[in-house]
Structure formats: structure tokens, C-alpha cells
């Protein structure tokens, strides 16, 4: 016997399933975040943010790890963003599909699938040892730059390709050169997507552990220059928790990580929206 379900019933079932899936995901996410915030927020206070950790992180705050995280992320972003966006424009605007674009795209896609610890190993061998940078912010930032490059290329290229072709035709038909068309029309239309890719990458840099331990080390003191070793917040959290040094401080660090990533999202999006509404 065939089970007959009429259209309205199947509509109900589908709706229920989709709603249920979305709700479960949200509940899990919210539960994780709330759990960490509840455990971590009480630990965060002014001195936690402003004193360096000592006693392996059992005592003191996390000031040096905040600074280390910012340094490494900034280095990675400053290097990866121009190269990533440049490559994306090259792929989307300046070439037709050919052997070179296929090689670039294939490499980028392969690189995106590699586990971050492999980047760590590469960074260790190439930057730390071969280039003689030692464990340092520079080596860590460069390694992370390689790690996020594929993401930035892909998201930027997608955003550029999503700009309607007719905009380009209009710009050219009004006497625009290729460069003017890209700067005045394509880029402003694609910026939202490009920035989303950058935010995603910032998040990955801040949250990365494996690749950073291998390349920037895990020194607890306040870094003085790009050539110093440092410990990022994520690494600090990992060591505190995995070695059972201080769960309180681990949760405090984790809560701060979540807050920082959230704030970056909000601030960058606000900046982009201001830029967009200005150019409109």
C-alpha cells in the first residue's frame, strides 16, 4: 500500500523539519556561548586585562596574550589582504579562464583544505628555521597569512563575480577605463562580500592554535617587537586548559575571545555600511 500524503501535510512536515533544524542549531550555539560567558565573565576585570600572566598563567591576567594576538592577526591581515584581493581581481577581471587561472584556483582550493597544523609545520621549517626568524610574531603572522590567503581570494572573487556585468558595461560605455571601472564600480559593489571574507579570516587568525604554537612559540612575556616570540590568547587558553593550570583563567580568556570576535564583526560591518552609504 502506498502512503499518500497530501501537499499540505508534506508542507507542514517540511516546515517543521526546517524550523526544528534551525532551532536545534541555535540552541546548541547559544548554549555553548552562554556556558563560556557564565564561566568566564566573572574572571574578567580590569587587572585581568592589564597585567601579564605569571606562574605559567596560574596567576596574573592575560595582557601580553591580548597584545600578542593583535600583533599576529594584524601582521597576517596586512599581508594577506592586498595579495588576496589583488589575486581575486586578477582572476575575475583581468583574465579569461586559462591554464594559469586554473593553476591559481586549484592551488588556492587545495590550500584551503589543508589542516592548519600543516601550515604550522611549513611555517616552522620555512620561516622559523630556514629564514632564521626564530619563534616570532613575524613568523606566526606570515604563516597565518598563508593560511587565510585562500579564503580571502575565494570570497573576494565570488563577491567580484557577483557584481552584475551590466555595471561594467555602463561604466565602459561612459568612457571609463578598466581601472576606473574596477575602482569606481566593481569594488564598491563587491566590498561587502570582500569584507565578510576578511572578518572570517580575522576570526580564524584569532582562534588559531596549532599553526601559531609552531611559529610564534608560547612565551608569556609582553612582546616588544615583531621578532619576539609571543603567546596568543587561543594558545594560552589551550595550554591553561590542556595542562590543567587554571580553568578559571582559561574560561576568562575564552570569554574575552568570543567578545572580541563579536566586537570586530560589529565594528567592521558598521564601518563598511558607512562607506557604502557614503558612496551611494
Amino acid at each position, binding site marked *: 500500500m502506498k502512503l499518500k500524503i497530501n501537499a499540505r501535510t508534506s508542507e507542514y512536515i517540511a516546515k517543521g523539519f526546517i524550523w526544528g533544524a534551525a532551532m536545534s542549531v541555535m540552541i546548541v550555539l547559544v548554549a555553548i556561548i552562554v556556558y563560556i560567558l557564565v564561566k568566564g565573565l566573572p574572571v574578567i576585570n580590569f587587572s585581568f586585562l592589564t597585567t601579564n600572566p605569571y606562574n605559567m598563567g596560574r596567576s596574573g591576567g592575560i595582557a601580553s596574550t591580548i597584545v600578542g594576538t593583535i600583533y599576529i592577526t594584524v601582521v597576517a591581515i596586512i599581508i594577506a589582504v592586498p595579495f588576496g584581493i589583488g589575486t581575486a581581481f586578477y582572476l575575475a577581471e583581468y583574465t579569461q579562464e586559462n591554464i594559469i587561472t586554473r593553476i591559481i584556483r586549484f592551488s588556492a582550493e587545495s590550500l584551503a583544505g589543508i589542516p592548519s597544523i600543516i601550515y604550522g609545520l611549513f611555517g616552522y621549517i620555512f620561516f622559523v628555521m630556514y629564514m632564521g626568524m626564530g619563534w616570532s610574531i613575524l613568523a606566526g603572522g606570515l604563516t597565518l597569512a598563508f593560511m587565510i590567503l585562500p579564503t580571502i581570494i575565494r570570497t573576494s572573487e565570488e563577491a567580484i563575480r557577483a557584481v552584475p556585468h551590466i555595471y*561594467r*558595461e555602463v561604466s*565602459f*560605455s561612459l*568612457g*571609463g577605463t578598466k581601472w576606473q571601472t574596477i575602482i569606481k564600480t566593481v569594488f564598491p559593489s563587491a566590498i561587502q562580500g570582500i569584507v565578510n571574507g576578511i572578518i572570517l579570516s580575522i576570526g580564524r587568525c584569532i582562534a588559531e592554535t596549532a599553526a601559531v604554537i609552531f611559529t610564534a612559540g608560547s612565551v608569556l612575556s609582553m612582546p616588544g617587537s615583531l621578532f619576539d616570540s609571543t603567546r596568543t590568547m587561543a594558545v594560552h587558553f589551550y595550554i591553561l586548559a590542556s595542562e590543567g593550570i587554571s580553568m578559571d583563567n582559561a574560561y576568562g580568556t575564552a570569554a574575552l575571545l568570543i567578545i572580541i570576535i563579536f566586537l570586530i564583526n560589529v565594528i567592521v560591518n558598521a564601518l563598511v555600511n558607512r562607506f557604502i552609504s557614503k558612496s*551611494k
Partner: protein
Amino acid sequence: MSENNIKIEIKNFSFYYGQKQVIHDLNLKIHKNEIMSFFGPANGGVTTLLRSLNRLFELNHNTRSEGDILIDGESIFDPDASVTELRRKVGMVFEIPTPLPLSIFDNVAYGPRLNKKKSKDEINEVVEQAIKQAALWDDVSDRLRAPAMSLSGGQQQRLCIARVLALKPEVIILDRACSGLDPISTAKIEESLTKLKKQFTIVIAPHNVQQAMRISDRAAFMLMGYLVEAGADIFTHPQDQRTDDYITGRFG
């Protein structure tokens, strides 16, 4: 017509997409200050021809042309000729309204801002004048900073005309520029065009035979890439049977 009245001269012009020839050895002269229509059944090659006049087809890969197109006696394909200058001289309005995602003002100012440094006042003046010429000023004068997308379809198309006028062009091309518009918007645009031809040479693909009859000074009938015939009395005294059939609605 005397020779110095000729704005555009198309000479033995052929056009290919890859191997496929879509315009065959076309010869035609377009006069100054006239409205010239190209019409005919689908795929006749009208869009291709219009996009050749400002070399916009070069954006498509794998295209090739033969023969020549002269504007004021000079070849637009001359290796020394600047294509951006050509496009400022030969402005184009597309089939669908194509406002850029900018404000009304910035859309019209887009062209003038591209070349040479112009002062704010100069830009303001050019923009205002262009919008007035396109009969859009009364609709938008109080909201020049609003997004162009917020205009109605007819207003958007007049904005696109204003955007072209701001280039201070010599030739204006309109490829079926009224096809998506209501009769009132269409009438407004046709009225503007009839005024504008005093200053410009206007080349259009009308969206139907009636529109071609209403506004053209001369018209050319295109069929499968061939120019069948062209002239001022093509609608009243077609020379070719195929033209007659098309105009009277026997095919097309």
C-alpha cells in the same frame, strides 16, 4: 544631402562572433541631427551594429569586425584613436534601465568625473543641465542624493539618458530603450528625443514598427544580418517585398 552633413559612415562592415557572421557587408550613412532607426525581426544584428558604433563589443571576447565605421570622416578603429574618447562622443542607453548603485546625482556625474579634473561647480552645472535636458528635473530636483534605484522604471531610463547627456556626446544610441516602459514614459522619452535631435545625432533600435514610424527621420530594415533597405519613406514606400511584409505584419 551634402557630404558634410554626414555624421557616421558605415563602410563594408561585417561582424563575427567567433566563426559566426552576424553582420554582412553593411553600407550606410547616418546624417547629423537626424533620428535613425534600425528595426527588424529578432537576431537581425541591430544590437551588434549599435554596440559597434562605440566599440562596446570589444568587451565580448572572440569577436571580430571587418570594414570600417567613420565618425566625422575618421575611422573609429584607427589604432591611434582613443576608445574612451569615442565612448564619450557616442553615448549609449541600454535596453533595460541600468542605474549604477549610486545616488541620482552620482549616476549623472559618473561620466564627467572620469576625465580631467573638474571643479565641484562645473560638475554640478553639467549634472543639472543634463537632468533638465532629459526632462527629469521636476521629478528629482529635491532628491538628487537619493539612490537611483528608488526611481520608477521610466524615470530610471530618463536618468540613463541624462547620464549620457552629461558626457556632452555628439551621437546618442538607444537600444530598445523604451521596451519595458509604460506608454506615458515612452511618450515622454520620445518627446525628449525629438527635441534632442537638434543638438545630437540619434541612432535607435525602436521597440516596434510604430515607434520607428513615429519618431524616425530615416529608418533601416535589418534582416538576418543584412541591411535590406534604408530611407526616409521606407514605411510609406518600401522598395523590398520583405520590408513591406514586415511592416504590414505579415512576418516577424
